[in-house]
């Protein structure tokens, strides 16, 4: 591949690299590293690997980095080279799989989903250590239009390099007609567990996304079904929520987005003003047998406000809530933890059901109420939540 233009990618922020490439007669790589001689050689190796992989032999490459990891250097160099030529399939070759990742159960806990800006190397540097149930690498609102291409490379590299442990890792793509397809083609190479679809307004879009995922899973050899989380953030989306929730078996959770919704409706971002939309999302999700996740709370400083909103979301029937800062995670988990009374009830239901099963009894009652399947499932989920919240549930399975 030949370079056509001079191009730049990245930034001078901490943990990032600023990479400049330009056409040249031969290959020259210049490195200026914040850590001095400690990583210079390694950075050169990484750069050479990338250039070789693309068959580039004539280019001038300048890498000025501020403690960037290998995968950031790789992403920034790829970004610059992508911009210096005319892109192409060469950039969409699967990266070697550097990290084990397994599929994620459909019904797993999703109490918190933490959004991390997809083009911010500094914010992504420790993304594997935050305690949320789900991490959402964002290509949409947090990434300015001119940086979408760079962010795709960075998100892909983060996905293929970092071990997220037992966290479920998602990517919020752009709407399908506004870059979402390009996002998918790149980030699916990193094998995320799921895709958040913003501004979902019709089941057709969801079905279309499901089709694309099916195709890319096959092409990239992803051994699990990639889940979909449509985000309902407009009145049109709220009206269509019941159909959206059932549009594909891949949909495991409906999320609510309060900012765009209230902006479009012209209402306050108050609990009362958004109650109908929230209820609609929760009811649609329940009807489809999937989870519902509440909107992010925008004020990082207001811990009490976050707790109150998360607590109300739980009362309304939400299974989780979005977070825009790692500091919000613990508060969300605390708000979503079951009350001691709920745990007591759940233990009773589960042991009554177990007893009934042992005795071969079909129906069973607890505290005078029939325990049918939904009640039992609900009780089991309460115990799961209690365990996640480190509450004492020693005697229950």
């Amino acid at each position, binding site marked *: 591949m030949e370079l056509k233009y001079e191009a730049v990618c990245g930034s001078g922020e901490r943990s990032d690299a600023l990479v400049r490439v330009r056409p040249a007669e031969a290959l020259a790589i210049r490195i200026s590293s914040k850590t001095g001689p400690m990583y210079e050689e*390694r950075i050169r190796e990484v750069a050479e690997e990338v250039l070789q992989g693309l068959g580039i032999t004539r280019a001038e490459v300048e890498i000025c980095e501020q403690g960037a990891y290998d995968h950031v250097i790789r992403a920034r160099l790829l970004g610059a080279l992508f911009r210096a030529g005319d892109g192409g399939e060469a950039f969409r070759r699967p990266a070697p799989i550097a990290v084990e990742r397994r599929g994620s159960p459909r019904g797993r806990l999703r109490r918190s989903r933490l959004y991390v800006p997809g083009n911010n190397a500094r914010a992504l540097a420790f993304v594997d250590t935050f305690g949320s149930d789900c991490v959402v690498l964002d290509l949409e609102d947090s990434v300015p239009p001119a940086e979408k291409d760079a962010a795709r490379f960075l998100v892909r590299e983060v996905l293929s390099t970092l071990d997220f442990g037992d966290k479920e890792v998602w990517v919020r793509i752009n709407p399908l007609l506004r870059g979402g397809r390009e996002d998918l083609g790149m980030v699916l190479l990193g094998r995320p567990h799921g895709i958040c679809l913003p501004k979902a307004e019709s089941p057709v879009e969801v079905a279309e996304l499901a089709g694309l995922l099916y195709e890319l899973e096959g092409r990239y050899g992803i051994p699990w079904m990639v889940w979909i989380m449509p985000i309902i953030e407009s009145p049109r989306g709220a009206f269509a929520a019941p159909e959206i929730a059932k549009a594909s078996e891949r949909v495991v959770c409906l999320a609510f987005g309060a900012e765009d919704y209230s902006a479009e409706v012209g209402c306050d971002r108050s609990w009362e003003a958004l109650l109908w939309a929230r209820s609609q999302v929760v009811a649609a999700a329940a009807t489809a047998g999937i989870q519902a996740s509440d909107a992010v709370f925008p004020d990082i400083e207001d811990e009490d406000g976050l707790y109150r909103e998360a607590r109300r979301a739980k009362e309304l029937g939400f299974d989780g809530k979005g977070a825009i800062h790692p500091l919000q995670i613990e508060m969300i988990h605390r708000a979503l933890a079951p009350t001691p009374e709920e745990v007591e009830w759940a233990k009773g239901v589960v042991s009554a059901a177990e007893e009934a099963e042992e005795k071969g009894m079909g129906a069973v009652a607890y505290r005078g109420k029939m325990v049918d399947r939904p009640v039992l499932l609900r009780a089991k989920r309460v115990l799961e939540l209690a365990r996640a919240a480190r509450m004492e549930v020693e005697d229950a399975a």
Partner: protein
Amino acid sequence: MPRNAVGREIPEEVAGKPLRPFQGAFATVPEGRKAAPPLKTIRPGEEKVLPSLEEAIRRVELADGMTISFHHCFRDGDLLVLRVVEACARLGIKDLRLFPTALFPCHEPLNRYIEEGIITRIEGSMNGPVGAFVSGGGKLAEPAVLRSHGGRWRAVECGEVHIDVAFIAAPTADPYGNANGMWGPNACGPISFSVVDSWYADKVIVVTDNLVPYPAIPATIEQGYVDFVVTVDQVGDPAGIATGTLRITRSPTQLRIAKLAAEAVVAAGLVREGMGFQAGAGGISLAATDFVAKEMARRGVKAAFVMGGVTRFLIGMLREGLVNTILDGQAFDVGAVEALREHPRHAIITPGFYADYNSRGCATYMLDFAFLGGTEVDYNFNVNVNTHSDGQLLHGIGGHQDVASGAKVTIITIPTIRGRIPTIREEVTTVTTPGEVVDLVVTERGIAVNPRRPDLKEDLERAGLPVRSLEEMKIEAERLVGKAKRPMFGDEIVALIQWRDGTVIDVVRKVAGWQ
């Protein structure tokens, strides 16, 4: 070469002076008596005030090869060290041994005087450019010597370091030499680091820009020890006191570390009525202290005392009644300086009071817990605060050793990665504080418990905190950062790191190459 108790090779002697290898945190039994300054007298009516530093330097007969001492209470706003060294250079005095409590980036111009042979030896902390310069090797006639706050006090007291002339920057002084740092246009807080210098130096010069009528009280520095008083236009710049990041961090990673550290303290049952603790001034320590303060308020308990570089955060705790007493050895921001004047339970203490190994009591021994930092930590829980992983000597010891050896639970808060440099090592580049006095290492990936503390491990596990091994956390971090080159060290020793008892816990060697 013999190895000391933390496995470091320590030469038997350096520059003709025998070195005692570190044998254990409390292994040394001191012998002998304290050093003694010369006897002097004064007659009624004798004047001490001199018009200039040059005049004072002449009058104390400062000569080639002598030792001059300073405190660092203005931190990066110090003006006196450079002024005195410049004056000495003008007067043709050379081959000086500089004995400051600490140097800061503002002292970078000293490097020129080192090149010129005006200064040939340094014993004291070197934060930043002077340390980097000395790390290059071949600059000083003898290796630099680094001591903790308590270690420096001890070294003067036992005669290990003899001070010829002590220069004491005093924000307020009277013509008879009584001086303090609490008052005046350039108040800097306690100047109690210099108390031992005033007691043991042959000659003592108080330098002030705020000469007040007799008597200046409180007399942190007392008239009976002071030979001369010199007035200057400005003695130091208090704006330089708050160096670094004296604010609660907003970094999610640092906050997570702080939170975990505070939770560990709670889990260990240390948040209780009458507790005493050390609050560091780094971003993580401040945040951890803030979390602890919230828990104290929630439980309605009050700390008996708190010490540390004193910041407005501690002042806030005092005013809110969360703390009974602040023991203040050093102000870390201007708010702390102002508060010193207002609150009767905000007390100035000397390093002798809080940290002297050769004493019958240290305030640090009364600490229940302490938050401390570091540049590296290793599998044996040894902590490096002096050098970076590239071998550069960039930080002093401060009170690190003194606090760690005293606190019942010493907590090192450290991110596993700093600007791509992994901080958990199989062996630290330089041992400042031995693992035997370190109990917990808290990172964003979990809490490592020193195997010497199974009790703490149990407490933390019971509370559901993420107890992990340093090895595990190191492997995780190194997966992210990749393989780095390491410095190779040559034979030349650029600095000695003393343990607080005067033994040598490590030496810093010049970097000879990379591998």
